[in-house]
């Protein structure tokens, strides 16, 4: 696991905000399609908020791989953007 618990919490909060969900519904194991809010529009809302909050530019190549809370945390960890 290349990221901290703080990153996990930040990502859960960010996903909750992007999908307009209570934080307790955003479990660490949540992934694309796991709940109805995380559909194509929801996914892109998460990507846009990630770019804004972490001051990053996410390549189109990467968007398709960030389909779980874990994958997002991992990406941030590897990018040094925790």
């Amino acid at each position, binding site marked *: 696991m290349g990221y901290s618990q703080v990153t996990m919490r930040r990502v859960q909060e960010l996903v909750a905000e992007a999908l307009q969900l209570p934080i307790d519904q955003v479990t660490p194991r949540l992934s694309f*399609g796991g709940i*109805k809010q995380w*559909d*194509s*529009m929801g*996914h*892109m*809302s998460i*990507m*846009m908020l990630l*770019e*804004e909050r972490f001051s990053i530019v*996410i*390549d*189109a*190549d990467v*968007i*398709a791989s960030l389909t779980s809370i874990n994958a997002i945390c991992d990406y941030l960890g590897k990018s040094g953007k925790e």
Partner: protein
Amino acid sequence: MTAQIDITPPMTIPEYLIGEVQSKLAYVDESILKAGVDADGGRITLELRVPAAGAKRKNLEGKVRRVVTAMVQGAFKPKVEILEDHLDRPLPYSADPQAELVRRGEMFQESAGLFSLGPLLTRVIAFFESRFVALADSFGAAPYRFPTLIPARSLERVGYFRAFPHSLTFATHLREDLDAIDDFAQHAACGEQGLESPPESFAKIQALLSPAVCYHLYFALADKPLPAGQVVATAVGNCFRYESVNLASLERLWNFTMREVIFVGSRDFVLQNRETGRQRMRTLFEEIGLAYRVESANDPFFIGEFKKQAAFQSAFQLKFEIRASLPFKHATLAVGSYNYHQDFFGRSLNITLPDGSPAHTGCIAFGLERIAFAFLAQYGLDTQLWPEAVRKAIP
């Protein structure tokens, strides 16, 4: 008296969004006859039916800026993937075939975006149709016939109104009211802008003219387990997408015909068949010498959903277009597409696989008028110049 105005957008429009923004500007205001974005994305030029000044101009500029901001701010640059490139095939023709088609009575424009076609175009379309049906047969696709109308409730269920409101074409009828019907019969007349009749004469809209073929199959499969866990079907149908001032020639019709081969099943089943279909089409296009490219694309979502949906389609490689060369304008035209919808329709319409999970869907779609037009733009109207495979098949 027409007028032209220049507007500086609130931000530079990146090259990859210029075409998309330009096409959406047609829907900003009824006064717009033509919209253009310059090559560096720093200026928008509108040609208007009547001059706009004062508050009217300010309102117009505000709407244009709203479109640009919604589509450009925070946009993701799409990943362009080219799966095939055969644009360099030698072609014997480089003129615009339209004038000659009109002169020969092969094309008759009834109104914007509505064309009747003559024998030659009909035969060319029939040729391509026979090949597309052969593709469907190679998958053992079951033939279907679908209505031209599509229920409003069904389109709502798959979010069509949010994604493509600008291109909808509504069907209605007079209210069941003797006074309204009598009044219409006596006073209905067509003015320059269309039928002049009180809006209250018409019933609430229950149906629209169908924008796609495959939706009908998904609606037929809704709310039940998928028979045998998978379906391959094919159908041809009239489709309707209103494109405002962008309607032009056979390249962009309001009413066009689409042949689709549709796959419903597991993810692997749909993706594998989509790829197999592409390989089989490559053989056909080679045989008839079509100059084309297959590249990643996105659907023309409206402004509100464009940014997210288009980026999603691009990132997940959901759509690839067959873009045929139009030598007379050094451009390409989408004549077909290979589409994968993931489990969007399965979830939205509750179509389930034997294990209870939502079904995945995909389709291979061909625009019949467009492919015939592209073929004639590449090979002309002199049948002696046509590839042997086409010449032999068309009497």
